[in-house]
């Protein structure tokens, strides 16, 4: 005989789960009781939203499924932002929620919420377990769905009695999973792959547009080889940073709203765009009609629904990025020529580099550049959302996949700090930095309690401009400097950290940056850096919303 809670824990262990992030409550008491005796590591967060983000950070940093656990009602509802974040960025997490006993379901019982109803639009799939005998199968299916195909979050809602009921038998975890409606395509269609290669062969001005799908499928090595063999310049999305080393000669950096000028020019002038593991997000494409306007579009993606969703595609390939690139490399010869195109791209790079004013003042770009130099592009960099995120994307020179975690699709402020906690759990030997804004950091600042309690050596660099910086930037540029409710009063983050028993340092001058970053890295435990940066620094270049991506402001030509 086994209880549902026991079956759940065994199911998690069977799926290779070692760590989960959660917050106890009435409906999940049977699970917590079972956890008490298990070998699973449970990280107690201070808010359920952080549990979901931590599971997400764990998943992105490790490539494994992240797990979070919350109680029914408010606990479950607090996971929603984290689940939506994971959904938008295709991150595999399994969210476990407690639920009122089955007898009370639908009766508006205390701490009841229809969490499967609430999360249907933001999960890849979800389950309400009605009977203990189904639990083992559901746990197995949930992990399988989360990690396969286009990864994504799966939620399992667990009524309290399902966890306390005992059922006979020892092994309740089926070996075989049967989901007739779920058969992801991994191998690209051979004819489509050949068509893509033919189009590439004909192209004179090709560009690869690579995204998070490269990271998720572990296709970085193949991408770099593909680019080198075909002499193909590569631009990546925000989610694709790290797919090709920043210093690779064919790398054009990020494209889109805050992308590099040269990436945006190259995409605008290319005659073939090889899009892989991307979804033509509006922050990338700007005005869709003028995005790669003269190019043949090849689009490879594991999710058929992404192909042709935003932009008409000439050669669609459904499949896993790694499998497709391997198949293409298998058939592809080394390409010569294209010198004039590569030369043109090189000149753009030289003429329009990313830049900022170096006048001795404390500029955020300089801080990130210095961090990148010290860590040599290694470590795991997590960001919050806003200016801090874009500066990091522009100035940190990522070398490896899974070294950059950020909320791209949903743009969730407050993501970074808990995600950094998750990443640090997944990869304890890495230096993990959360690059934050003062606004974003205050959205999940309570997680200082979590790092204090666990001792997880997460470092936080707050780019403190006492504004909601990106919103202020938009107000400056598009609302005639009317800073409506975007100014934040000064906060002494070092003292707050100190109240939790965490070390920190305030930095006001550029000459102190290097030493401060070193102190944080060398500290054994968590460390908070409060950088008082130039208050009205902007992220440039910038493509105004709805404009073509070659119509940038604030760049060399803007």
């Amino acid at each position: 005989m086994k209880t549902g809670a026991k079956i759940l824990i065994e199911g998690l262990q069977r799926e290779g789960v070692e760590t989960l992030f959660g917050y106890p409550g009435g409906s999940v008491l049977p699970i917590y009781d079972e956890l008490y005796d298990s070998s699973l590591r449970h990280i107690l967060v201070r808010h359920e939203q952080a549990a979901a983000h931590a599971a997400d950070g764990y998943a992105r940093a490790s490539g494994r499924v992240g797990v979070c656990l919350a109680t029914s009602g408010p606990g479950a509802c607090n996971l929603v932002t984290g689940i939506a974040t994971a959904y938008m960025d295709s991150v595999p997490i399994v969210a476990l929620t407690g639920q009122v006993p089955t007898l009370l379901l639908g009766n508006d019982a205390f701490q009841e919420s229809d969490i499967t109803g609430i999360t249907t639009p933001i999960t890849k799939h979800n389950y309400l377990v009605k009977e203990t005998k189904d639990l083992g199968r559901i746990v197995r299916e949930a992990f399988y769905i989360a990690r396969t195909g286009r990864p994504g979050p799966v939620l399992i809602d667990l009524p309290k009695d399902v966890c306390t009921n005992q059922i006979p038998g020892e092994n309740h975890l089926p070996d075989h999973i049967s989901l007739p409606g779920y058969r992801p395509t991994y191998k690209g269609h051979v004819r489509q792959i050949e068509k893509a290669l033919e189009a590439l062969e004909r192209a004179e001005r090709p560009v690869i547009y690579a995204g998070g799908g490269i990271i998720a499928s572990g296709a970085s090595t193949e991408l770099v080889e593909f680019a080198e063999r075909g002499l193909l310049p590569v631009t990546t999305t925000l989610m694709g940073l790290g797919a090709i080393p920043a210093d690779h000669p064919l790398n054009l950096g990020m494209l889109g709203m805050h992308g590099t000028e040269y990436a945006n020019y190259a995409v605008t002038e290319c005659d073939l765009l090889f899009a892989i593991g991307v979804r033509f997000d509006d922050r990338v494409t700007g005005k869709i009609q003028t995005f790669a306007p003269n190019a043949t579009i090849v689009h490879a993606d594991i999710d058929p629904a992404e192909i042709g969703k935003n932009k008409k595609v000439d050669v669609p390939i459904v499949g896993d990025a790694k499998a497709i690139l391997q198949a293409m490399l298998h058939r592809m010869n080394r390409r010569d020529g294209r010198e004039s195109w590569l030369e043109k791209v090189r000149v753009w790079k030289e003429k329009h580099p990313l830049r900022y004013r170096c006048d001795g003042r404390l500029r955020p770009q300089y801080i990130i550049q210095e961090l990148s130099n010290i860590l040599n592009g290694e470590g795991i960099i997590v960001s919050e959302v806003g200016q801090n995120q874009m500066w990091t994307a522009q100035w940190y020179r990522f070398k490896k996949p899974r070294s950059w975690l950020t909320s791209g699709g949903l743009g969730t402020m407050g993501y970074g700090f808990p995600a950094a906690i998750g990443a640090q759990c997944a990869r304890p030997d890495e230096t993990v930095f959360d690059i934050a804004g003062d606004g974003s950091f205050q959205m999940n600042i309570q997680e200082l309690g979590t790092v204090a309690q666990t001792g997880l050596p997460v470092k936080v660099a707050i780019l403190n401009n006492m504004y909601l910086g990106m919103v202020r930037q938009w107000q400056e540029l598009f609302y005639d400097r009317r800073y409506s409710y975007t100014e934040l009063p000064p906060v002494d983050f070092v003292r707050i950290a100190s109240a939790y028993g965490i070390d920190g340092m305030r930095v006001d001058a550029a000459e102190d940056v290097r030493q401060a970053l070193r102190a944080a890295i060398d500290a054994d435990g968590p460390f908070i850096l409060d950088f008082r940066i130039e208050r009205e620094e902007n992220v440039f270049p910038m493509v105004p919303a709805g404009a073509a991506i070659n119509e940038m402001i604030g760049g060399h030509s803007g």
Partner: protein
Amino acid sequence: MKAHTLSVLVENRAGVLSRVAGLFSRRGFNIESLAVGTCEEPGSSRMTIVVESDDSQIEQVQKQLNKLIDVIKVSDITENEIVERELALIKVNAEPGSSRAEVMQIASIFRAQIVDVGSKTVVLEATGDTNKINALEKLLRQYGIKELVRTGKIAVLRGSKTVQSSK
């Protein structure tokens, strides 16, 4: 824009209808009609969904439906030879005397059944394609329709072709 008829085979599980309907509403697709019931495959149900959309949108509708784990197979059968039917129950004013006789005559022409007779009304049961039901409804309006329910369209391919599993 035209009406597309989708035949969708789904797992017969709690919440499937709400997943399908929710997908339509949040992505801004407009459902004209949706009919669902069990089918020949044990544990499965078949939905017939009529959607007003252009060709590129219907492709997106199908792809999004296919992404749902509980959806086994989606087929756009609009361009195929199909048998399609809708059932309507129509309660119409029919005072004894001439108007009742006329209503019964119309029912007979449309091969509709009178399934209930009240002191001032009759209830007609009609099956047929959407055009036929529309025509009957239009004719009966002049007598005053008290209540009307339609099931929405159900459809099946003609001949031996079928819409079955394997996505």
